[in-house]
């Protein structure tokens, strides 16, 4: 029912989403933490920058990345070699594209944690990393879960950026959304249906998981 090339595309997409989400959590947590705690005026600027991928069309993002990383761009193509038409380029592009979906739930979750609890931990001799791991992370669990799941699901559905910067190379950058697009373009509607239905089911289950987990968390900690 699903061709080997499409199975390949599914595999690449999953790898891309996993890699992107992992890296985004590592990068996004410090950013979200800073946004939640800082009083600096730069906060609104950073908030706006982080949110931009929400409204920028992905194709615009991909197009500018292509130019920026290319030999005619400001980096003179030195860095571009390692990214354009490569899986690593898709990862970078996906990280930008899915950034707000990871940072915002984290930040919102951090905002709900009382400063007093964190201050109390400090007076009980917990250092910064200790406080973060033992107080912040457990209390921000819904935010972490939401951020990871949304980041993952959002990357799975990515199309425009992958289209512009990926080069659609089978086994390397040809992701599910491009496979579906190609099937539609070449009138293989049957295969397009199979992949699309799979994506829809996946998205639905993903969101169910997020909401169920958050619901349970709310019931446990008033």
């Amino acid at each position, binding site marked *: 029912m699903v061709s080997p090339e499409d199975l390949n595309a599914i595999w690449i997409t999953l790898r891309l989403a996993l890699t992107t989400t992992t890296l985004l959590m590592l990068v996004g947590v410090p950013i979200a933490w800073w946004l939640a705690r800082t009083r600096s005026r730069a906060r609104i600027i950073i908030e706006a920058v982080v949110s931009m991928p929400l409204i920028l069309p992905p194709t615009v993002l991909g197009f500018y990345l292509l130019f920026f*990383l*290319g030999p005619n761009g400001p980096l003179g193509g030195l860095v571009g070699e390692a990214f354009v*038409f490569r899986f690593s380029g898709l990862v970078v592009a996906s990280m930008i594209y899915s950034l707000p979906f990871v940072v915002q739930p984290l930040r919102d979750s951090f905002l709900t944690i009382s400063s007093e609890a964190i201050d109390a931990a400090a007076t009980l001799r917990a250092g910064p990393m200790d406080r973060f791991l033992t107080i912040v992370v457990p209390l921000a669990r819904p935010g972490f879960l939401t951020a990871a799941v949304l980041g993952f699901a959002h990357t799975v559905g990515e199309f425009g950026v992958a*289209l512009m910067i990926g080069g659609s*190379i089978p086994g390397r950058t*040809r992701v599910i959304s*491009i496979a579906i697009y*190609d099937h*539609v373009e070449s009138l293989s509607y049957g295969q397009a249906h199979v992949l699309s239905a799979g994506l829809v089911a996946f998205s639905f289950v993903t969101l169910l998981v997020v909401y169920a987990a958050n619901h349970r968390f709310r019931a446990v900690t008033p």
Partner: protein
Amino acid sequence: MFVACGKPQPPKPRFARIAVASNFADPARALADEFRKTHDAVIEFTPGSTGKQYAQIINGAPFDAFLSADAARPERLESEGRGVAGSRFTYALGRLALWSTRADFVDPKGDVLRGSAFAHLAIAKPDLAPYGAAAQSALEHMQLWDDVQSRIVFGENISQTFQFVESGNAQIGFVAWSQIILRTGEARGSFWLVPSTMHPPIAQDAILLTDNAVAREFLDFLKTPAARSSIKKFGYDLPDESPDGQP
């Protein structure tokens, strides 16, 4: 006498709506300007990707004619009984070119393909775009298809392929000759015009979809020597037809 009717209305302009492949959009408009000098009519062009336009047409989009980027879609429309019988013909033949933005990179025989001077070669997806299929043919003809496999990047269509090369991310790529003429003016960079014997013809067919007189006249106009010579200037070849359009 005139009380009941009001002002007399000017006669409605004769009008047609034509779907045209993106790569032929500019030539089509230029030809329509020529057409208007001798015909009293207005033509509205809708450029787009041929695949999508085909889907729109079979779902009832109100086009009077279709200038496709390939022959397959008009053939399908004809066999599905959606076009005016006997109206389908090839209005242009695409020419394939190997191009790079760097001067002195592509030699006039395409031997650059044999070496390892390039990290990426862009072609349009063969199963989606006739120029892509032609590129694959040419590479197979040169027995290089297997050698370049690992360095190929695929554009969804010929425009995206062109973009990959123009941005420099792909050092070379197979694009349409008409794109080079249109987009680079003085033919910036270096290129190799691929002999048409190395690939099946990239036939671009037109088909009449409704009984619209303006559309019919325009399609006939495309077969005239004047129009054919313009089409040639835009970077296309012409099918071997006699001037009055008979195959």
